[in-house]
């Protein structure tokens, strides 16, 4: 084997091993979880109830078993992950399409590396019988590191504009 090829292969193997072993920062893991959640909530078009239920369950798995959720647009109360899956399922069923986009995500990981607070803005747009609805909110999300990875424990809508009763 030519010497140059051997050197190139050794360097490539070393780089790949380092890349594989290098710890992924918690911020990136949390953003990845959020990305998965956003994808699972989204509904690009018509889908079967079975598929919808599966997506709703997958979305709920980004949360801890008993999450705290403070959001006035939630169609129902949520105490457990199963409640959340039901809420997501009904929200997806209520619209023909549903899209969520997040912006300006900022993550602060706690000193012990087991908790994190995330601030972000999110915009949801949904379509029902040709009518489009949009809503934009700021959220504070509290994450905890579990055996299954980073999971959301608290999701709270922050009112940039406080509504008056």
């Amino acid at each position, binding site marked *: 084997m030519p010497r140059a090829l051997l050197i190139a292969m050794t360097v490539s193997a070393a780089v790949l091993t380092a890349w594989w072993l290098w710890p992924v920062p918690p911020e990136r893991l949390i953003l990845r979880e959020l990305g998965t959640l956003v994808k699972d909530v989204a509904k690009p078009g018509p889908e079967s109830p079975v598929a919808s239920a599966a997506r709703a369950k997958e979305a709920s798995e980004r949360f801890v078993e008993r999450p705290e959720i403070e959001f006035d647009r939630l169609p129902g109360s949520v105490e457990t992950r199963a409640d959340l899956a039901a809420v997501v399922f009904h929200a997806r069923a209520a619209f023909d399409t549903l899209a969520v986009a997040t912006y*300006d995500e*900022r993550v602060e990981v706690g000193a012990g590396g087991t908790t994190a607070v995330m601030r972000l*803005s999110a915009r949801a*747009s949904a379509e029902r019988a040709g009518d489009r609805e949009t809503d*934009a909110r700021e959220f504070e999300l509290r994450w905890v590191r579990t055996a299954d990875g980073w999971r959301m424990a608290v999701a709270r809508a922050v009112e*940039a*504009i406080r509504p*008056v009763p």
Partner: protein
Amino acid sequence: MAAAESRPSIRRRLLRLAVGARPRVTVIRAILLAAACTVVFRYGLRPVRAVGTSMEPTIRSGSLHFAWLPAYAFHPPRAGDIVVVRMAGPHLMYLKRILAGPGDTIEFRDERLRVNDEPRPEPYILPGGRWTMAPLRLGPFDYFVAGDNRSVPRESHVSGVTDRTRIAGRLVF
């Protein structure tokens, strides 16, 4: 024949058209222009695209506007201004009109806006809105903001009180 031969080739002419006679000067100009655009659009005139109908008829959904971020560097926001209200960052903001400022008492009575118990004309809204709201006295840093589209029930419209630090700039055009 001699004249035709002395002409620069098409490739050379295209290159000259793209980078100019002095490429180094062109590169420096491009860098300066990019830096100026970054500073102007990040800290000065921020382009904003309206999404949603809450500011209709003044602002149509999908239209492009510019917010002047240093607008309130030297004076406080004023009632009537259309402002951008910051959320978690600069990429998603509310577009609202200031209806009342610190210390004012605001209410919607008989379908009309009243500030400090005096009717406040609102030429920018379409007739037909049926908003009602009990008098509310604003705190020393509070502003009451709402969209111009009063045909939407107040409960399903994002309106209410925001504080001075949330107001990121004023819409200029």
